[in-house]
C-alpha cells in the first residue's frame, strides 16, 4: 500500500556489512513537499540509510518505492537520474573553479556538441540562484566562499540536476550558528517551491526549527515518526537514546557554590601571528578550584589560540600564564602536564587522537608512567590492554575493544577516549575546548557529567565552546571572546542569552 502523497517509501530496509548489522529494520515514508528529519544518535545508522538512498550501498533486504514504483538504486548516477540529490557532509567541490563550473562539473552545457558554453552555464546558474534566493555570484571562485556558501553550491548542484528529493547529510555539522540560521531559511525556501527535503541531524534545536515531520532511528531501527509540532525536544531525545535524558547541567538556580584558590591565571596575554595581526589581545583571567569558567564566542575569535597558548602549543608574545602559582609561560607541553594540566582539544581528529592507532595506544599516550604501563623500557602489553578495557568500561566507549583503531569509532566514542585519557591524570586544571561538537545527546550528557564531576572534586575547568547552551549549562562564570579580546566576564546568575549573544556579536554597548 503506497500513499499517493508519498514521494519515497522505505519498507523493512536492512543492511549488514559482514557480520556487523548497520540497519535492522527501517520503515520510512516521506511525503511530497515536506521537510522530513531523520534523527538519531551517532552510529544509529543514519548515514548507512542515506548511502542506500544515494545508491552507494545496496540494502540487504527491504524495498524502496519512489513515486509509487519499486526501484533499485544501483549507483549514484542512477540515484540522480531518479531525482534524488545528495548533499554530503564533506563537500565535493573544486575550489579553483567558479560556482557555475562546479554546478555543471562533469555535465557541461555544450556548444556545437563540443565546446563548453560558459555563458549558458553562468546564465542557468544565475537563474537557479535567483529562483531559490541563494545569494551567490555564479562567477565567484568556490575557494573564496565561506563554508555556508559552499554548502549552497552543493545544494545548487543537486537542484540543477532537477532533484525532486534533496537529502542533506548532517548539513549543520560544519556551519557556524548564523550560517545554520541561513540554511534553515534556505530549506524553508525550498519547501515553499515544492521540493522535498530529507534532513539528517542529531541536533534537537534544528529538528524543531526546520521540519514538518521527524523520524527517529535507534540502533538501526526506525523507532517513531511524528509531526514535529506534536512532540517536544525531550520526547525526541528519549526516542533517540531509549531513556529519559537530562541535558541540563547545573542551571541557573543552583545553590551558590564556593571556590578555592586560583589554579590558572592569565595575565595580559597577547599573541600575534607572523603577519603582525593580533590573535589574542591582552587577555587576563583566572579559574579557581571547583569552578567552571566558560568562554563563549563565535568560532574564529581567538578561542583556538587561547587554548593552544594555555596548552603550550603556541607561543605568546606578551603576558604570563601561571598554573598553581608557578609561571608556565615558557614551559613545554609535558612540563605543563606534570604541573597539572589536562587538555581536551577542540578537534579530536586533529589534535586529540591518532586515528590509525588503537584505542589502547591512544589512551596510553600520555599515561605510560602514571598508569604503570611499562616494565623498564618494555611496554607491558597486558597492562595496556587492562588499562584500556577499564577505561572503555568506565567511560562507556561503545563498539570498542582495546585493539580497535580509534578512527573507526563514532565521534562521541572518540571524544570519550580523549576525555578518558586526559582525566586519568586527574589534572588540577582541565582545559576543554568544544567538548561535545558533533556529539549526540547521550554522549553529551555523559561528558557534561564528567566535566561537572571534575569541578565537584575541586578541579578548575576552563570550558571553551561556541555552543551557547553548553556554556549556560555548565559554567559558573562566563566570558565572551570577540576578535581576540575577552570582552567581559559575567557570573552565571547575572548572565542571560541576550547579553551574551550581543557580546558574541561584538556589541560593545553590552560590554560597557
Amino acid at each position, binding site marked *: 500500500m503506497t500513499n499517493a502523497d508519498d514521494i519515497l517509501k522505505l519498507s523493512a530496509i536492512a543492511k549488514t556489512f559482514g557480520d556487523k548489522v548497520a540497519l535492522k529494520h527501517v520503515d520510512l515514508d516521506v511525503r511530497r513537499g515536506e521537510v522530513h528529519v531523520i534523527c538519531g544518535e551517532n552510529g544509529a545508522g543514519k548515514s548507512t540509510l542515506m548511502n542506500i538512498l544515494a545508491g552507494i550501498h545496496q540494502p540487504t533486504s527491504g524495498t524502496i518505492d519512489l513515486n509509487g514504483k519499486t526501484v533499485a538504486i544501483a549507483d549514484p548516477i542512477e540515484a540522480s537520474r531518479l531525482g534524488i540529490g545528495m548533499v554530503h557532509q564533506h563537500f565535493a567541490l573544486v575550489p579553483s573553479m567558479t560556482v557555475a563550473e562546479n554546478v555543471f562539473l562533469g555535465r557541461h552545457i555544450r556548444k556545437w556538441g563540443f565546446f563548453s558554453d560558459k555563458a549558458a552555464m553562468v546564465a542557468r546558474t544565475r537563474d537557479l540562484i535567483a529562483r531559490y534566493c541563494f545569494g551567490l555570484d555564479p562567477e565567484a571562485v568556490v575557494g573564496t566562499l565561506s563554508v555556508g556558501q559552499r554548502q549552497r553550491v552543493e545544494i545548487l548542484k543537486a537542484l540543477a540536476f532537477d532533484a525532486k528529493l534533496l537529502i542533506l547529510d548532517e548539513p549543520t555539522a560544519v556551519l557556524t550558528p548564523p550560517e545554520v540560521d541561513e540554511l534553515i531559511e534556505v530549506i524553508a525556501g525550498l519547501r515553499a517551491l515544492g521540493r522535498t527535503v530529507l534532513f539528517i541531524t542529531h541536533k534537537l534545536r534544528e529538528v524543531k526549527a526546520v521540519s514538518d515531520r521527524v523520524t527517529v532511528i535507534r540502533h538501526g531501527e526506525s523507532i517513531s515518526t511524528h509531526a514535529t509540532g506534536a512532540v517536544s525536544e525531550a520526547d525526541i531525545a528519549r526516542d533517540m537514546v531509549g531513556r529519559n535524558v537530562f541535558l541540563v547541567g547545573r542551571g541557573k538556580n543552583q545553590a551558590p557554590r564556593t571556590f578555592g584558590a586560583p589554579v590558572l591565571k592569565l595575565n595580559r596575554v597577547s599573541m600575534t601571528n607572523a603577519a603582525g595581526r593580533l590573535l589574542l589581545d591582552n587577555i587576563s583571567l583566572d579559574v579557581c578550584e571547583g569552578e567552571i569558567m566558560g568562554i563563549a564566542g563565535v568560532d574564529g575569535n581567538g578561542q583556538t589560540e587561547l587554548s593552544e597558548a594555555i596548552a603550550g602549543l603556541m607561543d605568546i608574545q606578551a603576558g604570563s600564564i601561571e598554573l598553581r602559582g608557578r609561571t608556565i609561560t615558557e614551559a613545554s607541553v609535558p612540563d605543563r602536564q606534570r604541573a597539572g594540566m589536562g587538555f581536551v582539544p577542540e578537534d579530536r581528529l586533529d589534535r586529540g587522537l*591518532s586515528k590509525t592507532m588503537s584505542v589502547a*595506544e591512544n589512551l596510553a599516550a600520555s599515561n605510560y608512567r602514571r598508569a604503570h604501563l611499562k616494565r623498564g623500557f618494555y611496554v607491558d602489553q597486558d597492562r595496556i590492554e587492562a588499562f584500556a578495557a577499564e577505561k572503555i568500561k568506565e567511560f562507556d566507549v561503545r563498539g570498542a575493544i582495546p585493539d580497535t583503531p580509534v578512527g573507526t569509532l563514532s565521534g562521541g566514542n572518540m571524544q570519550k577516549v580523549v576525555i578518558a585519557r586526559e582525566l586519568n591524570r586527574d589534572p588540577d586544571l582541565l582545559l576543554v575546548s568544544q567538548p561535545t561538537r558533533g556529539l549526540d545527546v547521550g554522549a553529551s550528557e555523559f561528558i557534561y557529567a564528567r566535566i561537572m564531576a571534575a569541578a565537584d572534586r575541586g578541579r578548575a575547568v576552563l570550558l571553551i565552546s561556541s555552543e551557547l547552551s553548553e556554556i549556560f549549562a555548565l559554567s559558573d562564570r562566563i566570558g565572551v571572546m570577540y576578535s581576540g579580546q575577552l570582552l567581559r566576564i559575567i557570573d552565571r546568575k547575572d548572565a542571560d542569552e541576550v547579553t551574551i549573544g550581543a557580546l558574541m556579536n561584538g556589541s560593545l554597548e553590552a560590554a560597557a
Partner: protein
Amino acid sequence: MIATRLKNSARAMYAPVAAILLTLALGFLLVMAITDDPVRAYRDLLFANFDSLGNFALFLNRATPLTLIALGVIFSFRAGIFNVGGEGQLYAGAITATVIGVTFAGLPAVVLLPLALTGGILAGAFLGWIPGVLKVRFAVDEVVTTLMLNIIVLLFTSYLSNQVIRDTKSYGAVSEMVPDKIWLPALPGVPGATSGIVVAVLLAIATWVVLFRTEWGAQLRASGTNLRFAKAVGIPADRRIIVAMLIAGGFGGLAGVLYVLGIGHRFEQNFSPEYGLVGLTCALLARIHPIGALATAIFYAMMINGSAYMQISTDVPRSLVDLLTGLLVLLMTARLATNKARS
C-alpha cells in the same frame, strides 16, 4: 585475545601473499611466451637458490642489505618521513668503512673493526640526519632531499673509488681491499655467506620490539601518524622524527658496512643492484612491518639471485625480475584502491 590477534595478523598477511602469488602466476604466462621450458625457468628463479650451498650463500648475501635497508625505511616511514635515501645511505656506509679499513690498515683488528663499523653507521646516520633536520626545522620536503643526497653520494663515492682509493691492479672502479683481519666470518656451515644475515634477522626482531613494545616506539609512531596529536599529548615529536631518521640512515650505513666487511671486502662502484629502491619496495610490501619486511626481503633476494640461474639455464632474461616487481607493486596498490572504493 591471542586468537583474535593471530587472526588479525593472518588477515594482514593475506593480501601481500595473494599479490605475490598472482604476480608469479601472471609472470608465468610471460615466461611461457618466451621459453619452451617455463617450468624450468620458474624453478630456477625461485628454487635454484637452494641447489647448492654456494647458491644459497649468494642468496643470503642479497637478503642481508635488503633487510637492513627495509628496516631503516620502516623507522623513517613510521615516523612519517618518506625517506627514499636508502641507496645513498648504503653507499655512504660502504665507502666510509672502506676508507677507514684501507687508511688505517695497520691498526689491530679489535680497534679497526669497531672503527670501520661505527664510522660507516655514523656516515649513513649523518645522511639521514640532514633531511630529518631540514624537514623538522624548515619543512623541506624529504623526498627531494633524500633523492638529491643519493645522487651526491653516488657521484662522490664514484670519485673516491676512481681517483683516490682505486685498486690500480684490478679491472673496474673498485677500491683496494680492506685488510682481511676485519673481514666478517662466514655464516657457520655456509661458506661464502655473510654472517651479516644474522645481524639483519636480530635487528628485524629488535626493530619490532622497539617500535611496538616501547613507549619510545609508540611516541615515534604517534608522531608519524598524527604530528599535531603527538605534540598535544606532550611527545617531543621533532626529536623523535630526527632520531628516527638517524636510525634509518644508520641502518642503511650498516648495510653498506656489512657488505664491505662480509661480502665484497672492498668498495665496488656498482655493488648495489638498486638495493635502496628494492629495500623500500620490500618495506612497503610488508606494510612497513619489520617482521614482514624480513619476509619480503628474503623473497626479493630469492628472485634477484635466482634470475641469474634462470638466465643461464633458459633464455629468459633476468630483467624479468624488474617486470615482476612492477607487477607486484601494481597489484598491491590496485588492491588498496578497491578497498577504498568499497568502504
